[in-house]
């Protein structure tokens, strides 16, 4: 038991030396590429029929039935003010675990799962790209062939929470 523990620790130390590997799900909005931690993503589904929910912030698209569970769907586009596009066959909903509850986020398309070393993550530049909230950006990954914006959707929703509450008190 103790042995196993030390071995595990050794491994960890080794990883630390090379920077821990993390996996990201990358997705697209317009031509830009974003990434979120793969561990937060529960599943990726096609667009089902969405039921509109009245008196919610504009970026709450509505709710869907995910195998008997009703979960809210957010439009990242609207949240970031990116302008509307028609849903097409590559449009997906990423179902994520946000603070213990499932929530869906609409994205233009989901590309792949990539592995990067934690060391590659740089702090976000002071000027946010195309309306994306500074607060939700947890970093950028600058690789020779691509630039990936790392999003922290949990932060995005906690902000929403506050907003929603203030909306309701009116």
């Amino acid at each position: 038991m103790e042995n196993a523990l030390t071995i595990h620790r050794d491994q960890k130390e080794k990883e630390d030396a090379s920077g821990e590997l993390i996996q990201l799900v990358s997705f697209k909005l317009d031509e830009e590429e974003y990434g979120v931690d793969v561990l937060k993503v529960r599943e990726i589904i096609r667009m089902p029929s969405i039921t509109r929910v009245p008196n919610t912030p504009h970026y709450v698209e509505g709710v869907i039935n995910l195998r008997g569970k009703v979960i809210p769907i957010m439009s990242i586009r609207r949240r970031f003010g990116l302008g509307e596009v028609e849903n097409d066959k590559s449009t997906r909903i990423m179902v994520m675990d946000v603070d213990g509850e499932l929530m869906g986020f609409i994205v233009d398309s989901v590309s792949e799962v990539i592995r990067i070393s934690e060391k590659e993550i740089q702090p976000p530049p002071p000027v946010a790209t195309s309306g994306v909230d500074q607060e939700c950006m947890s970093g950028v990954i600058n690789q020779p062939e691509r630039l990936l914006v790392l999003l922290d959707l949990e932060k995005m929703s906690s902000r929403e929470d506050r907003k929603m509450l203030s909306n309701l008190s009116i």
Partner: protein
Amino acid sequence: MSMEIEDQELLDGFLTETTELLEKLDDDLVTLEKTTGDTELLNRIFRSIHTVKGASSFLGFELLVKVTHKTEDVLNRLRKGELVVTPEIMDVILESVDLVKILVSDIKANDIKEREIDGTIEKLIPLLSSSVTDGGSAPEAAPPPQAETATATPAAGETKPEAEPQSDAISPQPPKAATVAPPPQPVVKAVESKGEDLSDNTTVRVDVKRLDDLMNQVGELVLERNRMIQLNSNYQGEVNQESFSEDFNKLTKRLNFVTSELQMQVLKMRMIPVEKVFKKFPRIVRNLARDLGKEVDLQLMGEETELDRSVVDEIGDPLIHLIRNAMDHGLETPDERLAAGKSKMGTLILAAAHEGNQIIISIKDDGKGLDPDKIGRKALEKGLITDDQLASMMPREILDLIFLPGFSTKEKASDLSGRGVGMDVVRTNIKKLNGIIDIKSELGKGSEFILKLPLTLAIIQSLLVEVEGEIYSIPLSAVMETLRVDQREFHTIGGKEMLKLREIVLPLVRLERVFGVSRKMDTDSACYVVVVGVGEKRVGLIVTRLLGQQEVAIKSLGKYLANLPGIAGSTILGDGSVALIVDPVSLVEGNDGASTGRIAA
């Protein structure tokens, strides 16, 4: 490491068992006070305490052992007939049981504190000396509680600071008052809040038979599934429309039958007897009666009536409020009762029964009843209504004034009631459960509060409506009637649309406006009005089309979309899409400004 896990299992077992024993103990002790000679009951109480003592000493909870040990000794003397149960002895025993509860909840919260237990133990000790006989026990046993109140209550005060000023108020009293002073009262207050988290809501005990029934039903369901697979493969390739539709029809019927059976079974498993709530009351009533100097005979009826866990969890507080009110405002003191030609002892009946898809709980007392004149006057004084309003009210409507926030008939707020928040909170809580509360009262003879609650909150009957292409579900319990009306019949009063419906003017709410539905269809002059009612209030909801009645399972919208105005939840329709459930309460309340008025002649 594995040892620790085992310990945790032991501890969990101990907590579950102890909690159950303690819950029963209160009730048993109060019963014992009434039926002093019941040796079997006494033995049972003794065994419960003994079990708690044994288990806690095994697990090494020393404080708990000390208290239970002494309590057990006192009970043992009662058992042997060396002591006779008196209210004073019972006070001390109840106090130590309360202490045990506090200690157990400490253990449960994994937060074992050094608590002051000597106060209670010192009260138990005099009961153990042989000099105490039944005749002399009262005066001799009582002074220690008096002296110790100050030390005993701060311990409880740790859990609830409000209890402290209380103890200060009692301690300066002259020792003479000791025999009647009820020392456990402040402690009880602390326990009421503590005691509630004692009961465990994470595990359920289910009758094995019910489980077997459920398994049977699931077996049936599996059979139906197999038939469906069979049917599918039979008609793979060649489709004979006629025989297919016939077979499919049969299958649908069976599946429908099996699932509704299954639904009932699962529902039944979630049901627990209302006794779980009721058994707290004898203790509360006993303490209140002693505090108020009233004699009360509490009768419980229909304790075996079952209702959903979710409902049981929520009705405790409203019922306590109602019982307090009945005892404080309703029942008179023994002297007043004798003067009014009634028996000295007041009766309080708490009854539960099923009625269709509802459960009815009533709290009935034979006290002085509600006085409409007095209520009307008080409401005027407090500025809750105007003279004109009062003059036009029926006696029945005046009684409803007690539900207004801020209403109180008491000149001075007592510790028990009279702060004018009670009934308002009661009604709000009942409404939250989709229930209604009704008052029956006869001046001088008594009053009765009747709660009507749904059996479950998980599945409801609902009316599906269409609002400009969107489907909403309205709980059928709130729907009074539906009408097809020509929009030209609407009247406008103060910018609000109204409909003359028989003798009342019905305020109308356009659902498409409340829910911001974009208008898709041409304005048709005819539309449907769904009349919904909460309590005495009525509102008409304007919808485009009625789709029919359906039993729907309520799905929560999650933390995120909770508390949306006008929306109570959601449900999944037959085609898999989500429909929102309208919250009639908020729509009716939201329309308060234009409440239903009577047409003058």
